[in-house]
């Protein structure tokens, strides 16, 4: 077969982005162009997956002083896995967008940014050197920033976008510093070169900096708050960038470079941050009322769980969750979009109704929810059980994971049950109809995703073979599976009894302290504000100094003016003064001669 360079998969979306910019004023065909391009990418990906597995390519980008900076790509199993996930999700999201983004005026901007994102994500997936990775990494951050602030006419999105980019730029700078440290220590940026000799004086510092970048990108403590605000973006963006692909870039980097993190002694940091983030995510998801933000906190929790697995050294469990999370989270966001659309754009869980009327859609949503709640036999069950298994030796961590599992099934069924209620205030049957007029292009992606969720259970069987030589397979043992199923069922039952019918339960009014402990996003936000205030205070002081400095320089000039004024009196045009000066001068010279 012909050897196709892996980088070509990123070209169709890039071309589509270019066309979207060209066709900015006539956006009708853009959505089909984008969808077509993503399908071409999918075909190319499948071709690569089948015919050129494990191929490494490198292009010389530029060279200087005898050192050449190469852009290298690889289709090693891990890269191919992420590439396949991205290529599958992209066309589905673009199909969903056809139904969701109906205003022509916003399509040019939307598709150009989405296509650049898709190209960057594909490039990220196949990157085999830190240089290639960093190019994609920054493009992911920027497109995410632009898409969060997509609805700039509203008040909130610009602020959410600013919060996201401020967090992400911290990571970008940390990543650049890490890359430069590695470049100077290894004189190479290839993953293979760095992984082959994980000993270097600067490595620990570089990996610590890289970890900061990873935590910002994957929304982990203490950089996690931007993700819930990012839900101000359009729903296709949330389901694409902020759940299934971009936020997992950080975790993917840990997966690829895990030996380096272990060598630098950062495993415990990864474990601790993952665990804290998972707890924060679960707590906030339990108490959040915004339909998409619940899912955002749940994404923080999922990513935290992946890091827990990586911190414990269980690569297999992390990869398993990495794969299945893509499908169920995308499906949940698709459902959120459908529910919002059917409820005239309202986003408060307690103000959403009637999702149970359309039994077909409700069944699809329920399957996604069961999958994230780790209910057998869906993919989420195998992934989360594998993680819990790897924590078995340490009972404390195991107990925390169980607690998180319980919280997950409670909040996701709260999220499922609340919008399923019937709106009593409603008289006609608009609510009933609204779930039947959802466009086909929004329903079809739901079906595709749910099929993938069900199919993803098979990943558990197929993955050990695929990852042979990379990760040791983890066997889910029966006892743990039983415990986890029971916990999940208890959670589901609890959610049903608390939130069934129209019983409005507001934790915020009944149990204030528990609520404050769970819903800690406000505390994090005030911490961010405090840090900004400190920086602003320093800036204020420096700016004041700058002002005073300028004034001081100006006043030195006034001394010169004063000297000039004093000197001016000597040349006042009066002959007497000149004669006096002349006589004095002669006298001084005479004295000088005499002495």
């Amino acid at each position: 077969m012909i050897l196709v360079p892996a980088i070509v998969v990123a070209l169709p979306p890039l071309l589509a982005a270019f066309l979207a910019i060209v066709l900015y004023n006539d956006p009708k065909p853009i959505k089909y162009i984008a969808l077509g391009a993503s399908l071409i990418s999918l075909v190319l990906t499948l071709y690569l997956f089948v015919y050129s597995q494990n191929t490494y390519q490198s292009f010389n980008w530029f060279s200087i002083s005898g050192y050449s900076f190469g852009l290298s790509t690889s289709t090693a199993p891990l890269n191919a896995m992420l590439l396949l996930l991205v290529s599958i999700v992209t066309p589905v999201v673009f199909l969903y967008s056809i139904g969701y983004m109906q205003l022509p005026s916003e399509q040019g901007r939307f598709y150009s940014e989405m296509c650049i994102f898709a190209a960057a994500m594909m490039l990220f997936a196949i990157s085999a050197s830190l240089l290639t990775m960093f190019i994609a990494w920054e493009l992911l951050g920027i497109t995410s920033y632009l898409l969060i602030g997509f609805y700039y006419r509203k008040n909130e999105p610009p602020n959410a976008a600013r919060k996201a980019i401020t967090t992400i730029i911290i990571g970008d700078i940390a990543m650049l510093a890490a890359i430069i440290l590695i470049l100077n220590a290894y004189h190479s940026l290839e993953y293979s070169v760095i992984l082959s000799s994980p000993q270097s004086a600067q490595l620990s510092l570089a990996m610590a900096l890289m970890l900061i970048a990873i935590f910002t990108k994957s929304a982990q403590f203490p950089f996690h708050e931007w993700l819930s605000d990012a839900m101000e973006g359009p729903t296709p963006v949330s389901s694409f960038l902020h759940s299934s692909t971009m936020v997992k870039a950080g975790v993917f980097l840990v997966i690829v470079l895990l030996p380096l993190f272990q060598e630098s002694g950062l495993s415990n940091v990864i474990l601790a941050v993952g665990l804290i983030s998972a707890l924060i995510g679960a707590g906030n998801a339990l108490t959040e009322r915004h339909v998409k933000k619940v899912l955002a906190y749940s994404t923080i929790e999922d990513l935290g769980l992946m890091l827990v697995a990586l911190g414990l050294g269980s690569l297999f469990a992390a990869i398993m969750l990495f794969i299945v999370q893509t499908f169920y989270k995308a499906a949940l966001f698709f459902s959120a979009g459908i529910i919002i659309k059917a409820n005239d754009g309202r986003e408060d869980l307690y103000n959403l109704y009637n999702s149970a009327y359309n039994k077909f859609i409700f069944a699809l949503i329920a399957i996604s929810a069961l999958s994230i709640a780790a209910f057998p036999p869906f993919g989420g069950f195998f992934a989360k059980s594998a993680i819990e298994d790897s924590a078995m030796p340490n009972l404390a961590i195991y107990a925390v994971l169980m607690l998180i599992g319980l919280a997950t099934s409670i909040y996701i069924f709260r999220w499922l049950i609340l919008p399923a209620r019937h709106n009593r205030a409603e008289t006609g049957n608009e609510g009933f109809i609204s779930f039947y007029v959802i466009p086909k292009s929004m329903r079809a992606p739901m079906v595709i995703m749910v099929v993938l969720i069900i199919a993803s259970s098979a990943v558990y069987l197929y993955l050990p073979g695929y990852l042979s030589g990379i990760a040791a397979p983890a066997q889910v043992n029966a006892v743990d599976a039983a415990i986890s199923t029971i916990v999940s069922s208890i959670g589901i039952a609890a959610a049903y009894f608390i939130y069934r019918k129209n019983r409005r339960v507001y934790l915020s009014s009944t149990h204030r302290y528990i609520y404050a402990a769970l819903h800690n996003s406000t505390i994090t936000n005030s911490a961010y504000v405090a840090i900004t205030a400190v920086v602003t205070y320093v800036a204020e002081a420096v700016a004041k100094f700058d002002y005073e400095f300028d004034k001081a320089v100006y006043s030195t000039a006034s001394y010169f003016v004063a000297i000039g004024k004093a000197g001016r009196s000597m040349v006042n045009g009066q002959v007497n003064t000149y004669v006096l000066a002349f006589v004095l001068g002669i006298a001084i010279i005479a004295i000088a001669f005499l002495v």
Partner: protein
Amino acid sequence: MIPIIGAMLLILIIGLVATIALDERHSRAIATAASLVVLVIVISVLFNSLLTGNIVHSEQYAYYLPSLNVAFEMQFTPISFALLLMASIVSLAAIYAGNIEKESPKASSALLLLFEFAAIGLFTSANFLLFFIFWDIGVVVLFFMIYLFGSAGRKRAAIKFLIYEILASSLLLLGILMIYFYTPLHSFDLSYIALNFHLVSQGVQSLIFLILFFAFLINMPVFPVHLWLPDAHTEASTQGSMALSGILTKFGGYGMLLLFATIPIASSFSYYVAILAIISAFYAAFVLMRQHDIKRVVAYTTIVEMSIILIGIASLDSFGTYGAAYGMLAHGFAVAMLFLAAGSVGHLFADRDIREVKGVITTSLSTAYTFLIGTFATTGVPLTAAFIGDILIFSGAQSAFGNIGLLPLGALLITGAFMYFVINKSFLSAKDSSKNVNYIGLSQKVGFGILMLAIIIFGILPFMILKLFT
């Protein structure tokens, strides 16, 4: 051998005469044409040198001052060629698109052509005397740019600019004369000095280094001699700002590169220079956070970027030096873009205060996106030219100064965060009370396009320039 450099200078002089002699209606077109021809020549030289792999080229016209043994001698070196390319593109954009205020096109076009003449002459000078002469032409031209075309406080700002720059010029002249008298064969010639300056005693070298260092420091500008820049930018017209930050600050940067390359004692000062550069970067980043005028914000980013370039120069590492040269190329485009966008905002809303201006994107899409891409370029996002400069500069700085060399990244972080704050406050936001009073024309959009193309082409195809360096 075709006398390329002489031809470029001659074309600019002819263009200048034609601009002044002919009617005011044609002046912008004539100036643009002259500038465009120069750009075409520069690009053809670039392609030719890519094919032959050799850029070095020199021309000698006459013994300018036989008694001093100085020839009117011009040359290309790889670094000076990169800056020359930047200067010709930025000049073209400034001449064609910069005059948003439509203020006396004849005088401003003529001044800009003269400034381009000075810039091209400076970057191609083969000796320090010509360097000095072109330097002073550039300074005086920009003094008139600010003094004649600007906002209300322009006269005070212009005088302030002139005082700082005259100080720099006189230090520069002093330093050059000292070099002349201390070199064994009394020469101004750059390559001769670079080869023979180690023969001069250490004390004299240090003295000359310090004198010239301060001259270039004022021009770059770097804390503590930066005070002229924000005022000059706030008051200057858009064209003046583009030329000032885009090209004039590179005079100092290029001089600094020459200084570190020619005077061997520079290596013993490099650590202190790096410390100064780090302080300056953070200082400017913090002051930037408390500015409200968009042009003033951009002016302070210039100080941050030039401080970062200074640390690259001070590293005396090949990565750092080439990175600094590439960084200056990138910064020239980026800052010209930002000033053109800031000037457009000022023209659109008759206001540049970030607390007042809202929703630039709803009024002018191109202005908003130009500012956005300019910000990407400032913060060193890959696929813009600045990324190549940044990675090379910091790699050089890290290997020369250890991890301290990476500190300016923190200043870059603050700068970037605040720039995005400005974007979300004024550019990509809802338009409420602020109302636009004007529209921007096609020529501004073309100007945006030229600069945007330049920054992306040199970001994606950096080897075009970097190949010349090695």
